[in-house]
């Protein structure tokens, strides 16, 4: 049975993105969902977890999440090496970088899974649409649609791959060629939507990465129709974003 661990949902729960896990549950009813709180030891440290998920959170909670995860970074690296799937949406992935820089220049040390840093501009919220692509497990191009609503951009050399190639919109930062970070099956992205609901094909990809055989997204026909309509809008050359 597939097991999904949702980290710190008591605070990492913004922008409806955690509903993506609900979507996976409705797609694969046999999935077990485990919620781990800030004061608990993550299950993936000692147990087999197929997908570790963390959603967008308030800035103050990023520091709490960093401190909660810091003692378990060896386990994080080990599980990534084993090919386990980690999905971090919104600003959740930022905590795994070198640091987060505040407007006054002070830095919050990150978990250093990869390089680079997030820079906050709290009175300058960035909102935008993003169209990107990635290769699925069969080498087919998968178009990824998403939205961004954030106070930060991510700068510097991450030393790892982008999660998605940028086709339209802004990537990790306004000059970046790609969006998100990828280390084996660790996928971190600023994109929200919810990402998994807006991208049913990406949801299928994640389910396959987690070992599901021939998975189908819940309410596949409607979800795919909604995706196709949105894809048409996102690729419409008449509209700039």
């Amino acid at each position, binding site marked *: 049975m597939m097991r999904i661990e949702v980290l710190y949902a008591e605070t990492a729960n913004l*922008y409806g993105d955690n509903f993506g896990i609900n979507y996976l549950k409705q797609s694969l009813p046999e999935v077990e969902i485990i919620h781990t709180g800030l004061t608990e030891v993550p299950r993936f440290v000692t147990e087999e977890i197929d997908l570790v998920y963390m959603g967008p959170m308030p800035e103050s909670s990023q520091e709490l999440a960093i401190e909660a995860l810091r003692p378990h970074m060896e386990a994080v690296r080990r599980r990534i090496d084993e090919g386990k799937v980690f999905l971090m949406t919104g600003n959740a992935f930022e905590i795994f970088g070198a640091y987060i820089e505040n407007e006054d220049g002070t830095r919050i040390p990150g978990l250093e899974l990869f390089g680079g840093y997030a820079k906050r501009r*709290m009175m300058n919220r960035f909102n935008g649409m993003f169209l990107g692509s990635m290769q699925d497990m069969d080498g087919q191009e998968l178009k990824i649609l998403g939205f961004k609503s954030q106070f930060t951009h991510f700068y510097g050399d991450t030393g790892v791959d982008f999660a998605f190639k940028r086709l339209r919109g802004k990537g990790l930062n306004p000059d970046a060629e790609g969006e998100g970070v990828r280390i084996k099956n660790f996928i971190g992205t600023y994109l929200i*939507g919810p990402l998994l*609901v807006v991208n049913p094909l990406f949801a299928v990809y994640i389910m396959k990465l987690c070992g599901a055989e021939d998975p189908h997204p819940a309410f596949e026909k409607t979800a795919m129709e909604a995706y196709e309509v949105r894809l048409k*809008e*996102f690729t419409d050359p008449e509209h700039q974003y």
Partner: protein
Amino acid sequence: MKGWYNRTEAFVYLEKRGNIHVFRFIIALCAGKILSFAIHVLGPILHKNGTHLPGNIALKIDPLFLRHIGKPETIVAVTGTNGKTTTNNLIIDALEKNGYKVLSNRYGSNVDSGIASALLQGVSLFNRPKFKLGILEVDERSSLRVYKYVHPKYVVVTNLMRDSLMRNAHPQYIFDIIEQALPDDATLILNADDLLSNRLKPQNPRIYYGIGHQPGDTAESRNLINDVQICPNCHSKLQYHILRYNSIGRAVCPHCGLTSPEADVCTLKIDREDRVLTMRLGAAPFDFPMISDSIFNIYNETAAVALLDQLGLSHEKIAEAFSTMQVVKSRYREDKVRGIRILSTMTKGWIAPACSAVFDYVSQLPGEKQLVLYLEDPTDPIFYSELLAYTFETDFEFLNKDNIQRIIVIGKRARDFYLRMLLAGIPEERLAWTETIEGIKRYLKPKFGVDIHILYDLHQAVHYDQIRANVIAAIEEAKL
């Protein structure tokens, strides 16, 4: 400072003499006054409101206009995510019914330009304040721009909850802005049952209001979102012993012992039958007329009483004023066509708690019903393809009730809403979607004894008549 005037010799001369602020302000005041007069005369003819325009222009001419403009001796600010308009209106109405002359922005905007417009109305051409008391509704995001120059003596905070994520991000962000902006000497009127907003400015003088334990209160969350799940002191998981909606309730931290503060002004008893609220705000409990029976508005009424009490209005006078008042029904209409009731409710799209509250209210109304939903906002200036993330924080699950026979969702994004409702567990056979308003006629199945509810977004108000016309056409075609 950029602008045509900074290149003029007169400007340089006045700036050197330190008079430029006065010069700028006089022009801003005159321009604002002329515009206010023009809008007052032409507005009704052109069907334009434009109440923020005079203030907007005044602020453009004099960026320190809010500092320079004359102000009432006592200013009350009413802010918070939900309920500030209702609370603001209750306060103003109660004061006016008791003979107070109140300056307010109730018919205008609540951002800095709207407040500038209101203050413009409140001064003479010589900048002399015409009012002793000002009650101003203040947009939370505008706090920094407003409170820097407009110093409220009292600040009523209704609650802090999720709002438009594109603008307001999350409640903690808004908390930080208000915290930074509020003057240290303002007396805060805070919701004891909102563990986020009631932690604002802990050193400030404060009055807490709230609702005491009521029959039917539970500790179980009914909503998808609650923004106060962890203790603000030690970050342990809070235990709620009352949770009314979202994060509104009473909690204790089992680790450090933090608890919701006791309310100084507390609604002890809610008597919906006799429409009476019994409140404790002094030596003995006092009965006030219940203006609205929804829990949201009971909080608003309690907040209004707490403020009016601070302003020195006697309990009897508050009660007398409330006895003839009702919550503005601009967001609610009800009528009958061929014996079928049509109930229309406007809600705020993009704001999950507001939509959830409307869904909860409608779903709990007795009787069979059909719903027409038009919640998308095609005016979204940022996302050409609208971001509907808020729908995944909104409790569409409330609409999964057997007495809701049919839900028709309209619009370009109808498929997305349809999918969201399927994910809420609503059976497919009860759902229909259509991209056009005319599609209502195809899917609505009017029947005697089955109410039709129209729930529409604020931004779809311009289409309301068209939606209603199509509902009526469906009733006519049904030949009941």
